[in-house]
C-alpha cells in the first residue's frame, strides 16, 4: 500500500466567478479514517467530486494512492458513494452486483453477497423498493466488493434514521477492520465523527482551516479561560491564539501549542473535537466577516 492516500497541492475549483475550493493543500496518510467537516457550502462536496473525478480542478494537482489524477484516468482503487446512495432504482439487487462485476475489473462478488445476506437484504428486491437504510447498505456492499484502497463517502448517513446510521457505520468500520483502506467521509455534524475518524479536515468557505491526526490536534490545543479584563495579558507564551470568545466577564482562548503553566487567574484545559472545530470555524467567520456561523452541530 502507498504511504499517502491523498496528496493535493494548491487544488482549486472555480464555478464562474466563485471559488468553491481554493488553494487546498492536503496530505492524508494511507489507512486513516478521515472526517471532512464544515458547514453547508464549505466545499466538501466539491473536494469529493474532484477526488472521484466527477469534476475537473481549475488549478492545482491531485495524487491519489500515488497516482496522478487526470482526465479519463480510471481509478479502479477508488470507490465513491454519494449522499443519496445512488443506484439504478429499477435494477434488482443482483443486477446491481452484476453491473459492479461488469464495470470493475477488481470485483469480489462473494463479499457483497455475504454482507447482504447477513443484513437480510434479498438479492431479488428492486432497489427502488428498499428502505433508505437498505439501499445505503447495498451501495456500500457494491463499493466494498471492489475492495477499494480509498473509499469516499459524501454525507453517508445524512438521509438515514439513527438505527440505519448506526448499522451503516458499523458495516463500514467492520469492513475497515477486515481490510485496511483509507476512508474519507464528509459530514456537517462533528459529534458523530469523533468515534469514527482519526484524521480531520476542516473546510470553510472553500479553504482548509485545519487538518491533521485528531489525537495530535487534541493534544496540541488548549482552552484558556480567565477574566476578560486581562484578556490581552493571558498567559499564552509562544502559543498562537486561534480564537477568543467572551462570555460575560470571562473570556475563553483557544490556543495552539502548550501554554506555560499557570497564572492562577487562568485555567487551561483540553478541548474535545467538537469544541475544536467550533472555534476554528468561528475564527474563520470572524476573519472573513461572515458573522455568526450557522450551527455546525446537528
Amino acid at each position, binding site marked *: 500500500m502507498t504511504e499517502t492516500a491523498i496528496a493535493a497541492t494548491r487544488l482549486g475549483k472555480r464555478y464562474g466567478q466563485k471559488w468553491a475550493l481554493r488553494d487546498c493543500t492536503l496530505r492524508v496518510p494511507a*489507512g*486513516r*479514517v478521515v472526517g471532512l467537516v464544515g458547514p453547508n457550502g464549505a466545499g466538501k462536496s466539491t473536494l469529493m467530486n474532484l477526488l472521484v473525478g466527477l469534476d475537473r480542478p481549475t488549478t492545482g494537482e491531485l495524487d491519489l494512492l500515488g497516482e496522478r489524477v487526470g482526465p479519463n484516468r480510471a481509478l479502479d482503487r477508488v470507490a465513491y458513494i454519494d449522499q443519496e446512495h445512488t443506484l439504478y432504482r429499477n435494477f434488482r439487487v443482483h443486477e446491481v452486483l452484476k453491473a459492479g462485476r461488469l464495470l470493475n475489473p477488481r470485483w469480489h462478488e462473494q463479499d457483497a453477497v455475504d454482507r447482504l445476506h447477513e443484513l437480510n437484504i434479498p438479492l431479488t428486491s428492486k432497489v427502488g423498493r428498499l428502505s433508505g437504510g437498505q439501499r445505503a447498505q447495498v451501495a456500500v456492499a457494491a463499493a466494498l466488493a471492489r475492495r477499494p484502497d480509498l473509499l469516499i463517502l459524501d454525507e453517508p448517513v445524512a438521509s438515514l434514521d439513527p438505527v440505519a446510521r*448506526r448499522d451503516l*457505520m*458499523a*458495516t463500514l*468500520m*467492520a469492513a*475497515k*477492520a*477486515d481490510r485496511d483502506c483509507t476512508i474519507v467521509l464528509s459530514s456537517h455534524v462533528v*459529534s458523530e465523527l*469523533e*468515534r*469514527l*475518524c*482519526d484524521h480531520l479536515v476542516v473546510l470553510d468557505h472553500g479553504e482548509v482551516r485545519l487538518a491533521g491526526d485528531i*489525537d495530535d490536534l*487534541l493534544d496540541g490545543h488548549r482552552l484558556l479561560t480567565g477574566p476578560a479584563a486581562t484578556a490581552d495579558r493571558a498567559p499564552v507564551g509562544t502559543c498562537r491564539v486561534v480564537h477568543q470568545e467572551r462570555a460575560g466577564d470571562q473570556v475563553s482562548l483557544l490556543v495552539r501549542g502548550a501554554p506555560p503553566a499557570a497564572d492562577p487567574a487562568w485555567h487551561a*484545559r*483540553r*478541548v*474535545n*473535537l*467538537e469544541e475544536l472545530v467550533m472555534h476554528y470555524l468561528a475564527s474563520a467567520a470572524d476573519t472573513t466577516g461572515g458573522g455568526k456561523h450557522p450551527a455546525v452541530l446537528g
Partner: protein
Amino acid sequence: MIEFRVETGSGVPPYLQLVHQVEHALRLGQLRVGDRLPTVKEVAKRLVINPNTVLKAYRELEHKGLAKGRPGQGTFVERELAGLPVERQAELRTALDSWLASAYQAGMDADGIAAMVATALHEFRPEGST
C-alpha cells in the same frame, strides 16, 4: 469477555478509554492472564468505532506489557494488575476526600473537578515512566 464502552465528548481520547477499561477489568480481576481480548473487528463493529482506535489501544496495552498480540489468533492478556491492599486504598481515598473538600471550598463544582482530575491524570507523568 470484556464489554467496552466509548463516550464521546468527554475529552478523553477513545483509545485511552479502552485502555483504562482493560486496566480497570484487570484490577477487578474480571480479566485474567491468557484471556483473549475481543478482536479489533468485533470491537469496531459493536461500538461503531474506528478500528484504528482499537488497534492503538491494543498497541498501548502491549507497550505497557499488559497484553500481547499473537498473529492470527488475537490479543491476549499477559499480566494482571495487582489491586492495592484494602487499607492502602482507604488511606488514599481519605486523602482524596479531603482534597475534594478543599476544592469545593474553593468554589469548584463537580464538572470542574472532574475536568481537572481528568486533565491532571492525562498529563501526569510519574517519575521513572515515559
